[in-house]
């Protein structure tokens, strides 16, 4: 009897308790909060039916039509940090985290994906809810950004690094691009920014409208540092065509590292001949021109094309590094033959008589002067000399020089003290430095 007397008190206590602390097994039923039972990945308290860890009853009556009988156990982020560690301790904190807006990203009861995130592995829809969508819709995209793996690089809560990056930029990039890093370390020539600066100096880590998601198209990107080249490209009458192509500077240069000087893709001449050594319309095949030739022009022998040509752009004929006549005939005047005379004897064409500047003379009479410093018909160097290679000594044309449809023969020979020439230009003539030839007669000597 005594036991029966306690029953009403016990029932009353049970009723009071159920109204004050929500229990999952009573909250989620076939009639109430049924959607929570369908969550694929429930929040741990939900899974445990521990609704009261977050929700507190404020009224005995539940549900109340038009009112609330429960309220959250704490406001904002404080509700979460009751169980989770605080996430606002580092230098930079994601704005929602800082504002306690955990639910801006996370579903508090549970979600279809991990981390109480609703959108699955592709985080782009979630992040672009706030961040500019255009960034992630570029023509050329960085892999992680393309597939929405934002958290591969960014910490969604907080970081010591700018842009909430998980590590300093370079370290972060090289975490995946380890193969690149190994090649960089062993390369003979490294582009200084690649060696020490953040990759984002040149690349947009999300994507851009430029191949390799560069921050600017080439050559604009490159000349933002290489200003002298930029000025040359801007000022030059003729710019080397590849620079203006989509490949830009990388048509010739390796942007990161290289085995060749000047960060060229290959050694200098090999790089040039990769285009200029082919049969292309409007271009001479220089590989064919120099192949098996007995004599090569000095710079070519050393594999240097840019000793004469400016590979970026030039105001001069054939993109030469200095002045040189475009026409076949051009009487010498100071500066007109700079392209050749910057290496060859500067006084070669200045004096009608000399014992110093050339061996091509009859006695002291300077025959270079005779040929080039001719006010009516000064012959340019290429009339007699092949600029790249020849089987003739002194790079004299052996097969003849192109003159429209005719190849003018030269027939040049050298002796110990002079030589002779039997070209298509004049009658056969000899010259001798020690015993000058007399040219007034009609006989060739």
């Amino acid at each position, binding site marked *: 009897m005594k036991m029966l007397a306690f029953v009403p008190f016990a029932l009353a206590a049970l009723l009071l308790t159920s109204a004050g602390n929500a229990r999952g097994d009573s909250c989620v039923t076939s009639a109430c909060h049924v959607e929570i039972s369908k969550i694929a990945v429930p929040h741990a308290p939900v899974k445990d039916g521990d609704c009261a860890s977050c929700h507190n009853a404020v009224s005995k009556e539940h549900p109340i039509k038009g009112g609330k009988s429960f309220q959250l156990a704490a406001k904002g982020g404080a509700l979460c940090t009751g169980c989770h560690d605080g996430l606002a301790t580092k230098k930079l904190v994601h704005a929602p985290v800082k504002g306690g807006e955990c639910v801006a990203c996370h579903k508090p009861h549970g979600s279809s994906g991990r981390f109480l995130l609703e959108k699955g592995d592709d985080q782009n829809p979630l992040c672009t809810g706030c961040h500019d969508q255009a960034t992630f819709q570029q023509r050329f995209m960085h892999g992680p950004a393309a597939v929405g793996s934002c958290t591969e690089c960014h910490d969604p809560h907080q970081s010591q690094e700018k842009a909430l990056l998980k590590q300093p930029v370079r370290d972060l990039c090289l975490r995946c691009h380890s193969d690149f890093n190994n090649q960089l370390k062993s390369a003979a020539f490294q582009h200084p920014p690649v060696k020490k600066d953040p990759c984002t100096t040149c690349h947009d880590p999300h994507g851009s409208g430029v191949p390799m998601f560069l921050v600017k198209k080439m050559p604009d990107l490159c000349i933002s540092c290489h200003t002298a080249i930029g000025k040359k490209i801007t000022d030059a009458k003729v710019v080397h065509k590849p620079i203006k192509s989509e490949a830009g500077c990388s048509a010739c240069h390796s942007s990161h590292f290289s085995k060749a000087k000047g960060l060229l893709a290959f050694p200098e001449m090999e790089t040039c001949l990769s285009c200029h050594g082919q049969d292309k319309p409007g271009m001479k095949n220089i590989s064919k021109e120099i192949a098996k030739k007995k004599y090569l022009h000095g710079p070519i022998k050393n594999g240097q094309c840019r000793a004469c040509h400016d590979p970026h752009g030039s105001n001069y004929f054939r993109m030469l590094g200095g002045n040189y006549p475009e026409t076949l005939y051009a009487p010498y005047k100071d500066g007109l033959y700079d392209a050749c005379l910057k290496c060859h004897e500067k*006084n070669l064409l*200045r*004096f009608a*008589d*000399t*014992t*110093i*500047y050339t061996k091509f003379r009859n006695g*002291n009479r300077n025959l270079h002067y005779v040929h080039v410093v001719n006010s009516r018909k000064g012959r340019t160097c290429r009339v007699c000399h092949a600029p790249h290679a020849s089987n003739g000594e002194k790079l004299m044309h052996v097969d003849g020089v192109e003159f429209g449809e005719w190849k003018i023969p030269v027939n040049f020979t050298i002796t110990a003290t002079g030589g002779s020439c039997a070209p298509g230009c004049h009658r056969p003539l000899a010259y001798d430095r020690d015993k000058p030839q007399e040219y007034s007669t009609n006989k060739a000597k």
Partner: protein
Amino acid sequence: MSATRSVRLMGIGKVLSLLSGALLALGLAGCMGGKAAREPVFWPPDPNPPRVQFLKGVSGSKDVTTASSVKLLSLNNDDDEGPKMIAKPYGVAFSKGKFYVVDTIQNNIAIFDLVKETFEILPNKGRGKLKKPINLTIASNNGNLFVADSFRKEILEYDEMGNFVKAYGKELEMKPVDVAVDDNKIYALDISHSEIKVIDRASGEPAGVIGKAVEGQEGLALPTNLSMDKDGFLYVTNSGTGKVVKLDRDGHIVHAFGKLGDSFGEFGRPRGITVDDKGRILVADASHQNVQIFNETGRILMFFGDPGYVYESLNLPAGVTTISSNLDYFQKLAAPGFILEEVIVVTNQFGPTKVSFYGLGQMKDFKGYESITPAEKEKGGAAGQKK
């Protein structure tokens, strides 16, 4: 055109209190014939980075050797004399460790080696006796000495031992004041005709005249000094026009620069000229009392030696030459951290120092003029690098 010793900033009162002491010290230093330890003297003056330092002065055998007598060069002459002074030097040349200095008062050639500490006098006897030597040069092919004698009106050749070999050009009626030689030719600078007489070395026969004015081109005008660079070009100073004229051996004038005047790059009385291994042209000026250095196009780079010091400044400078190898001896004379690139030797017709040695170089930690920041320039920071 003046230079100042490297001076740290200090209070005016302190400066005044030190001034009397400094003047006394300076006087004593002058009396001591330059042997007292000195603060290094640099050009250009503060706040510019130092490029030229005065290293040493030689005025006689006592500055070269401790030996009490001086030998006459040549195996045939073993006469010993007492200590020798250089009275009034003009031309200077350097070959195989030896300096050759013309003395226009004593009419002889002093030959000294600073490393081996020898001081010799070219024998001055017989057919090879000098009457009024002015300038000289050493042939690169055999080491023979060629001297321009304006009184004998000849070029005199001596072998390495000092033996007289030959006299050239008596019949040319010239007044030679300087001479250059290559393997085949002698180039005698004739001040009386403002031209260069070319003489064949092997035959001694005249081989032409160069340097005359041609149509549209000014020739030599009262030329005083001549030098040949390593490429065989001739450089002539002209007191008539104040120009430096560069000619090839055929006589073509390939370049000319300068004019009479007292501004930078201009000349008052241009005298000795030389071209160093790097193509820099050095010209001594008896009026400005300095040496101006030009690049190969004639653009002035700097000048040094201008008046201001008793011992270190130039005093009626005449001849100039440079040395760019085996500088160990001179490096030891340079200020700590001042690395020599070449040594410039200049003769002075007057003053306590008859042959002045200057080091051209830069401080070890100097990274070029472009490395000096504007703030450093304002503070004279570049000068600080020499301390």
